[in-house]
C-alpha cells in the first residue's frame, strides 16, 4: 500500500471517479435487462418484475456510486487536491527502481500468458518465462538459471500432463 497518505488520498479521488463512471455504466446496463414475462421465465409481468435479473446489479451499482462519492468526499475533506504537478510526480515515479521492476514483471507475465501460451509448446514457453524472470532479477548464475528453469518447466509439465493428465495449455 502507498505509505504516503497524501498520495493515497489523491489516488482515492482518481479511483473514486473511475468507480463512479464504471458503476454508472453497469447501472445503465442493469436497467436495460428484461422485466417482462414474454422474455423471462415468469408466469406474469408482476412475477417477472419482482425477480428481474437487473434488480441486484442495479442495487449494487447504485451502492458503488454512493461509495465512490463518499470516497471522493472523504479525500477532499482531508485536503487532497489533484494538481498539474502530480503528473510530473507520476513521471518521476516511473523512473524509480521499484516501478521499473514492477513494469518489467508485468511485461514478462503478460508476454508469457498472452504472447507465448498456446503459440509455443508449454514446456518451451514456461522455460523462457522462468529463465527470463530469474535472469533479469539475478537469481543465480546463468548456468544455474537455465538448469532451474529447465528442471521446473519439465517437472510442472510432467506433474500436470502425466500425473493429473490434463492437456497442457
Amino acid at each position, binding site marked *: 500500500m502507498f505509505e504516503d497518505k497524501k498520495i493515497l488520498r489523491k489516488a482515492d479521488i482518481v479511483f473514486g471517479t473511475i468507480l463512479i463512471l464504471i458503476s454508472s455504466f453497469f447501472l445503465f446496463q442493469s436497467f436495460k435487462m428484461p422485466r417482462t414475462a414474454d422474455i423471462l421465465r415468469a408466469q406474469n409481468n*408482476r412475477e417477472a418484475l419482482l425477480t428481474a435479473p437487473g434488480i441486484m446489479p442495479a442495487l449494487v451499482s447504485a451502492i458503488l456510486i454512493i461509495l465512490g462519492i463518499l470516497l471522493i468526499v472523504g479525500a477532499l475533506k482531508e485536503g487532497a487536491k489533484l494538481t498539474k504537478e502530480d503528473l510530473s510526480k507520476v513521471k518521476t515515479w516511473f523512473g524509480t527502481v521499484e516501478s521499473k521492476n514492477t513494469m518489467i514483471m508485468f511485461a514478462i507475465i503478460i508476454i508469457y500468458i498472452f504472447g507465448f*501460451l498456446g503459440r509455443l509448446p508449454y514446456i518451451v514457453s514456461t522455460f523462457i518465462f522462468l529463465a527470463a524472470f530469474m535472469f533479469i532479477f539475478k537469481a543465480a548464475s546463468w548456468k544455474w538459471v537455465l538448469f532451474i528453469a529447465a528442471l521446473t518447466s519439465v517437472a510442472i509439465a510432467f506433474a500436470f500432463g502425466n500425473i493429473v493428465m490434463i492437456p497442457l495449455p
Partner: protein
Amino acid sequence: MGIIILFEEIIKLFSWQIILALSVSTSLGIIIGALPGLTATMGIALLTGLTYKLPSSLAIPVLMGIYVGAIYGGSISAVLINIPGTGASAATALDGFPLAQRGEALTALTVTRVASMIGTVFGLICLISFAPPISLIAEKSFASPEFFLLAIFGIVICGSLTSSDKPIKGWIAGMMGIMISFVGIEEIHGYQRFVFNNPDLIGGIAFIPAMIGVFGIPQIISTLRGGSAKFAVVKVGNEKIKGKVFSIIKQNWRNILRSGLLGVGIGSVPGVGEDIASWMAYDRAKKASKKPEEFGKGSYEGLIASETGNNSCIGGSIIPLLTLAVPGSAPAAVLLGALYLHGIRPGPMLNFEFPRFIYEMTAILVWAAVALFIFGLLLSTVMVKVLKVKPAILMPIVGALCVIGSYAIGVNRFDVYVMTIFGILGYFLVEMGYPPAPLILGAILGPLADSNLRRTLLSSDGSLMPFFTRPISLIFVILITVSILSQFPFWKKIWSRKKTVEV
C-alpha cells in the same frame, strides 16, 4: 451420539492413502506457509487444480492438510527470518524473532508447533460442538431473507475488519466482488448478464482462477519489486528443550484458552480469518499479561497467543462454511469453491445430502493436527535450508504455478487470462488500500445474495417487511446497520458524548 460418529470417521480415515495424502499435504502446507510469498489461500487454490481429478475423499484431506500446515508454517519464517510466511503469523514474528536472536530458536519453534497443534484441536472441538446445532437452526429458521442478509452482513463486517485504510474501501472491494459474480447466466431465469457477446463469459468468471490471480500476482510483484535479496536466517542451536516447553505451555493454559476462543470467534465471522485472529489474540494476551512489557521483546505468551489464535481460527472458519455456505476466512473461501467443484454443496441442505460430512471434516482436522505435530518437528530444521532459497528463484516458479493452477480446473486458456487480469487489478487495489478478502467473499456470496433477494421479493409480493418481521432477519438488519454506522465519525461522536455524560 456425535462423539461416536466422530470416532467412526477418525477410524475410517485411517487408511494408508488418506494418511499419506494428509502427511504429504500438511508437509507441503508447512513449506508453503513458511515461504514468504506463498500463503494458505494460494496453496489451497493451486492444489485445488492439482487435485481436481482426485476423488473428493482424497482431495478434501489434501486441501485441509495444506490449510492447517500453511497456517502453522508461517510461524517458522516469522521466528527464523523475522518475515511472517503468511499474514496469520505477523504477530508471531514480534516475539519469535527476538527469541531466536537470543539463542532460543528451537524452543520458540517447538512452542509455536505445540501451540498451533493445540489451536487446531481447540478449533475442531468447537467445530464439532457448534456446527451441528447451528446447522439445525439454519435448517429450521433460515429462508431467503436470512440468506440475503447473511451475505450482506458477511461482506460488510469483512470489509470493516480487513481494511488497512478506511472501512469504506473494504465495502467497495466487497461490492466489486458481488458485481463480478453477476457476470454470466443467472440462476432464476437463465438470463445472460454482462456477457457482452463474449462466449467465454457465459459461464461466469471462474472463481478459483480469479482467486489465484488476486492473491498470487500481487505477492510476486511486491516480493521482488525492491530487488532480490537473500533472507538472513537465524541459526538454530542445540538447546535443551526437554521439560522447558511443557512448563511454558502449562503456565499459559489461560492464555491458550482465551486465544483459542478468540480464534474460533473471529474465524466464525465471515471472511475475517487467521490474520486478524492472531492479532486479536496477541493484543488480548498483552492486555491480560502480568508482564506486558516483555511483549515484542521475546515473550512466549505473545508467541503462544498468536499461534493458538490463528490455528484455532481454522475450525472456526469452517463452522459458517459448512452450516451456512459462508466462508469464515479467505482460505475457507477457496475451500468452499473446491467443495463445489467436488459436488459438495455446504449449507443447510448439507445434512440431508451428506449427513456425516461435518464429522468427516472434523476427523480430517484431527489427523491434520497429528501430521502437523510430527512433520512440523521434522521440517523445522529442514526449513532453515529451504528459506535460504532466493525469492528471485521462488517467485517465477510461483508465477508458473499460478498459470497452470488456474488452467487445470477448467482446461481453458480463458481462465488463465482471468487470473492475469485479476492479478493486475488485485495488485493496484492492494496498493490503494483495498483488501482482497472482501472482494473474494463478495464474488462467492454474490449469487446467494442475488437469488435470495429476488425470492424474498417474489414471496412477499415486493414488500421489504420480511426483513424486519422475521426475528433472525431483524437481528441481521440491526447488525448490518450498526456495523456501517459505527464506522462514521458522527456515531463515534455520539458514543464519546454519552460516555462523557456518564462520567
